């Protein structure tokens, strides 16, 4: 009995080991075949999408009759960043091969995983009656996030209000997707964002982060009140966003933020001053080469470099600063400028008077 138990256990192990090795070999082979098939489908699909009208027409029927599962797998693996003619052809294929019906059906499925798939592929649906906003209101955050991502910039523009609302979504994934989509929509989203900043006090941080990334001067008019916010994150994002404004409007607000207690805010405000490029800011920035925080000293050096000859003059003055950190930063920035072909800084003078070093 004991020996039989022993044999049974090791027999089971042996059977599993053989199964593992044989199954693995078969799986290797199957993977090769599947890869080859997918490659062929991809090649045919690329002819349909990217070659001339006549060549595309020639393969259209072949692609349409491909097994839907393989076709879907290949389409899903494509980036959804297709544009222009290729995008239109893919949509026509989806319509002709039944993928469109499949997506519409899945968008109302009770299983969220199927709705995620529908959300990912809904960019293929051309039916004017199809409501793209439906999945934006889905109860599952993955579906909402994916639905936002799959909207084209034009569709994003049509659903601006919903996307703005989703900036306050409880799931971080949805908030990031909404922000990214508004970035993709770009200038067309600005009026709504301005309205939001003026009238709405919810999810302001997300909107300010967008304002900083959108680099649109129209947004800077609304930022003054946020520069005095008690929330450091809000002041930081405001300082970043102000870097996109006109010097005459934003410089006074930035000059206020340069004196902030938070080093990150000082750095960003100084960087923004460098970005707007008003040489008048150079004298204000100069003393910050001696700031206690390295990030502020670095931002000051880079900003002064951006301000051109006036800024570099101040950097040269700091080569003789009693503060070794200011001297060091000024030299690093001027050395880097010299590598770009700008006049080299004077040679370093040994503070002990032993002579010049290179």
């Amino acid at each position, binding site marked *: 009995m004991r020996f039989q138990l022993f044999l049974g256990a090791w027999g089971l*192990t042996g059977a599993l080991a053989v199964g593992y090795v044989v199954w693995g*070999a078969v*799986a290797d082979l199957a993977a090769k075949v599947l890869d080859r098939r997918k490659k062929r489908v991809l090649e045919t699909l690329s002819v349909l999408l990217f070659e001339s009208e006549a060549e595309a027409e020639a393969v259209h029927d072949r692609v349409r009759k491909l097994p839907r599962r393989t076709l879907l797998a290949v389409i899903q693996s494509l980036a959804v960043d297709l544009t222009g003619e290729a995008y239109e052809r893919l949509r026509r294929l989806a319509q002709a091969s039944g993928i469109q019906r499949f997506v519409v059906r899945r968008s109302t499925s009770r299983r969220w995983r199927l709705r995620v798939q529908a959300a990912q592929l809904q960019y293929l649906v051309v039916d004017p009656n199809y409501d793209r906003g439906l999945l934006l209101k889905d109860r599952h955050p993955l579906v909402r996030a994916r639905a936002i991502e799959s909207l084209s910039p034009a569709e994003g523009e049509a659903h601006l209000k919903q996307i703005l609302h989703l900036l306050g979504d409880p799931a971080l994934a949805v908030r990031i997707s909404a922000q990214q989509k508004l*970035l993709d929509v770009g200038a067309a989203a600005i009026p709504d964002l301005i309205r939001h900043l003026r009238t709405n006090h919810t999810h302001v941080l997300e909107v300010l982060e967008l304002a900083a990334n959108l680099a649109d001067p129209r947004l800077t008019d609304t930022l003054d009140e946020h520069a005095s916010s008690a929330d450091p994150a809000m002041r930081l994002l405001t300082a970043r966003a102000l870097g996109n404004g006109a010097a005459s409007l934003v410089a006074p607000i930035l000059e206020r933020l340069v004196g902030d207690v938070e080093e990150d805010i000082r750095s960003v405000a100084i960087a923004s001053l460098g970005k707007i490029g008003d040489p008048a800011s150079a004298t204000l920035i100069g003393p910050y080469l001696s700031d206690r925080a390295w990030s502020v000293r670095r931002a000051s050096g880079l900003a002064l470099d951006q301000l051109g000859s006036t800024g570099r003059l101040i950097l040269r003055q700091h080569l003789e600063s009693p503060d070794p950190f200011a001297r060091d930063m000024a030299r690093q920035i001027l050395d880097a400028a010299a590598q770009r072909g700008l006049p080299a800084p004077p040679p370093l003078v040994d503070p002990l008077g032993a002579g010049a070093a290179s």
Partner: protein
Amino acid sequence: MINALFDRIADVAAGWVVVITAIQLVMVLSAIVEMRRLRQRDRHQVWRRVLRSPLAPRITVLVPAYNEELSVGETVTGLLALSYPNLEVVVINDGSPDDTAAVLIDRFDLRPVHPIYQKVIETAAVRGIYRSSREPRLVLVDKFNGGKADSLNAGINVATGEMVCAIDADTLVAPDALQQLVAPFLMREDTVAVGGTVRLTNDSPVRAARITELVVPKKPLPALQAVEYVRAFIIGRLGWNPLGGNLIISGAFGLFSRKAVLAVGGYEHSSIGEDMELIVRLRRKGYETGNKAWVDFLPEPVAWTEAPESARVLARQRNRWERGLMDVLHRHRRMILNPRYGSAGMLAMPFFFVVEFLSPIVEALSLALLLVGLIVGLVDPGSLWVLGAAYGFGTAVTVLTLWFDDVVFHSYPRFSYRVKLAAYAVVEQVIYRQLTIAWRLWGIRLFLQGRTEWGQQVRKGFNTS
């Protein structure tokens, strides 16, 4: 009567192995259920686009380095090439007597900057902070020796990311590793830590800080560890997701919410099992404050590390792990079987106590008595068949996990690799297992003596030829 007693000992040893194997089998089944859920989610490549956005959360990768001159350059190069848009890499040189800092300073043209930062967690003194003029995302913190936990805390102080990723200096990371690990943070606001599967680099060719092909190590010890890692990550980590979350995130690669880590005071300096201790503390605090702390695990291989190739180094590593486990169980003993701590207290902690701590003691004791009984003729040699059968079942579970791993990840996609791994699964159960038990008992002894040193680590470096 003595004969009967000794005969029972053989049964106890076999019974114990069967019980442990049965628990492992339950964990494998749990892992299969979890894997199915995760694969369905991943099939839709949900996060790839979101995480290419400049708005993705900022991640600071912390690389504590002690005597890592051979591999730190490759590791940092690989980290800087990660496909993540909002990244910072902080290397912490923990007073290495070798050229770890010099290698980095030379390779990345690092320059000293004023070492001012907010010291939220107390650490050993920082000698200097260096930044690269070529690569602004890289920071080197040069500090006096204080141990791994101290280095990680220094890194957390300097970090500017919302999340911190703790990584060993000899770890190579998959290009999309951070995109994968950050995904659970985007889905659940209560996520405090996420870990991923770690595999072994030994003998695998490395080019540009990437593994070009995962091979089964040529030497037996690393190959046995390769089998062990597959089983451990599937049973010991993935299986815990449906059962209420993990208690271990590998020190080689894990992602944490910086805010949550700061809230619990960072890594515990005095703990030798600082990785596990932090996770247990994060979860414990979550239960105590009513703010649930979710610890997730992703099964995708995201990092590769070098396994010890000599028995001496491996023995030191294993006895350190055992001391770490004992330290955590001792510090957080109040959690064991305490319903206040939910699944962590009722399932995970008792599991670690029984399977990871008691197991080597019971098994070693039974085997020793069995051996004595056989020598003095008090044990019927026939009872050894039962013990052999128990080890057979253990091997079956290991082969099952190898198969499962192959179905899902295709990690070792060659006929010869599979044959080798299946053979090593047998050796792992009937020779290697007993060796690890001996090393773990040594660890228990050292823990009881109050020894907390790490022991010297020996690195061979990556196969970049």
